[in-house]
């Protein structure tokens, strides 16, 4: 049976070149990068090379990169680390954080945690495409606001936020700006200086690097409180023995991503548009997210009258790996908070399908998927009491 991977937004295959670069740090230069001997020094050098490769993809300096265990830890470190530097008393700069209602749980849950600790969190609403309202952002800023955390691009519906404008507003008001760029890295050229970004989260496994490693960019002048105490690694910001193979893999993945970005994005965008066009031909199918301001690899649809888990399982039976925002597939049995924030009804959110493609997606795979989805949608509609066209 055909096997087609259309879930690049969840994770990606590790590139062969990345694996090759990682291997020596498992079984040759396996020393602790903090050790003084030659094993340790080799590991140390490899990590510093990776730091440069990661810095390069966002036009940062290597000493502004802190390695973490992934996107979630980067988000936690950025938000809690900054928050802990401030008081959380009313009428002090330190009281309020502004974020959005469509953030990844790594940001949303961290903010909720801080809310319980006494911080004031403003969750900006979004329009029907998932874009925040810049006026609402400006109006929400008070003298108490010390941090804005808005994602670069949404992990579910692929909508890209007006990052440049947000950065300008943050800078003008002397507020720190963090962005979760986990989905944007490698798909959008990012220059942290041009965009006035102070903190930026990166994950390795979304860009053909290994899992379990990520990075946080921290602008040089920005100080934050560590959330993992220990041996003082990463200038005391993030203690933990260096995951040398993982870090080397992340570095290489960033290097490859940057080198091929233009070519890859061009190819992927074409395939995405093709797939969107084909799925729009299905009766009562709706594209979620913004038609243009969207990630080059994101296709997100909802189909009236059917439920997402069923759709996904039937796709899986045809060899297609996809994702859904349906409650039935989530542990909480609640429809996706992102789809609900767009103003969709729960039954609309239940019928959603996310296809995220990548640099290895082929034209043939798009054609096959475009043929299979309408058949499955039809099969499910025939048995749906909510469909009687």
């Amino acid at each position, binding site marked *: 049976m055909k096997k087609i991977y259309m879930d690049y937004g969840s994770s990606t295959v590790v590139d062969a070149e990345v694996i090759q670069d990682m291997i020596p740090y498992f079984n040759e230069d396996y020393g602790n990068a903090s050790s003084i001997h030659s094993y340790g020094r080799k590991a140390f050098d490899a990590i510093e090379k990776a730091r440069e490769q990661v810095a390069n993809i966002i036009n940062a300096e290597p000493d502004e990169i802190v390695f973490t265990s992934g996107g979630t830890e980067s988000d936690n470190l950025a938000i809690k680390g900054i928050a802990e530097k401030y008081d959380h008393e009313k009428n002090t700069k330190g009281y309020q954080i502004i974020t959005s209602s469509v953030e990844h749980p790594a940001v949303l849950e961290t903010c909720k945690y801080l809310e319980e600790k006494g911080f004031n969190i403003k969750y900006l609403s979004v329009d029907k495409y998932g874009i925040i309202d810049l006026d609402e952002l400006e109006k929400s800023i008070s003298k108490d606001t010390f941090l804005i955390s808005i994602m670069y691009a949404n992990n579910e519906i692929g909508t890209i936020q007006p990052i440049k404008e947000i950065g300008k507003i943050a800078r003008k008001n002397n507020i720190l700006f963090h962005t979760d760029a986990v989905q944007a890295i490698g798909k959008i050229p990012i220059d942290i200086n041009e965009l006035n970004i102070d903190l930026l989260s990166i994950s390795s496994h979304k860009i053909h690097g290994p899992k379990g490693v990520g990075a946080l960019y921290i602008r040089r002048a920005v100080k934050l409180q560590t959330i993992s105490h220990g041996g003082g690694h990463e200038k005391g910001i993030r203690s933990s023995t260096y995951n040398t193979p993982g870090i080397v893999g992340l570095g290489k993945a960033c290097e490859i991503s940057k080198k091929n970005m233009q070519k890859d994005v061009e190819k992927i965008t074409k395939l995405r548009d093709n797939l969107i066009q084909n799925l729009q031909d299905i009766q009562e199918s709706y594209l979620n997210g913004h038609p243009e301001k969207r990630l080059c690899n994101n296709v997100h649809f909802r189909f009236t*009258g*059917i*439920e997402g*888990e*069923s759709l996904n*399982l*039937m796709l*899986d*039976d045809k060899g297609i790996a996809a994702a859904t925002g*349906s*409650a*039935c*597939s989530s*542990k909480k*049995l609640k*429809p996706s908070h992102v789809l609900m924030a767009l103003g969709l*009804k*729960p*039954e609309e959110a*239940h019928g959603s399908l996310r296809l995220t493609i990548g640099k290895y997606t082929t034209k043939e795979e798009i054609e096959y998927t475009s043929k299979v989805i309408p058949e499955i949608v039809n099969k499910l509609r*025939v*048995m*749906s*009491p*909510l*469909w009687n066209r």
Partner: protein
Amino acid sequence: MSDIYTEKVKDHFMNPRNVGEIKDADGVGTVGNPTCGDVMTIYLKIKDEKIIDIKFKTFGCAAAIASTSIATEMVKGKTLDEAYRLTREDVAQELGGLPAIKMHCSNLAADALKKAIDDYRKK
């Protein structure tokens, strides 16, 4: 396909039995709520207090579809009293078990069936 489901669930999900509507049904029962993600309707054709035909339509996850499908098979040909005694547990057991999280939200076929029988008896 996901391992959270038994082979029997997968079979009834991929090849559901008795899908459809009965235009001149003697009893119809709908349960569930689109908000929760599961809605099912059962149609009954009844003769001499026996279910001679049964059809269903379900909007929902694999567990919802499979449980309605198998429930229709379990009661076809049965008397109304027998069918009325069918429980959610019977349906889940016949499917070889359902994930705990699906037991209360998606396993509604027995409820829909009772509602359809009530509907017939009220007429």
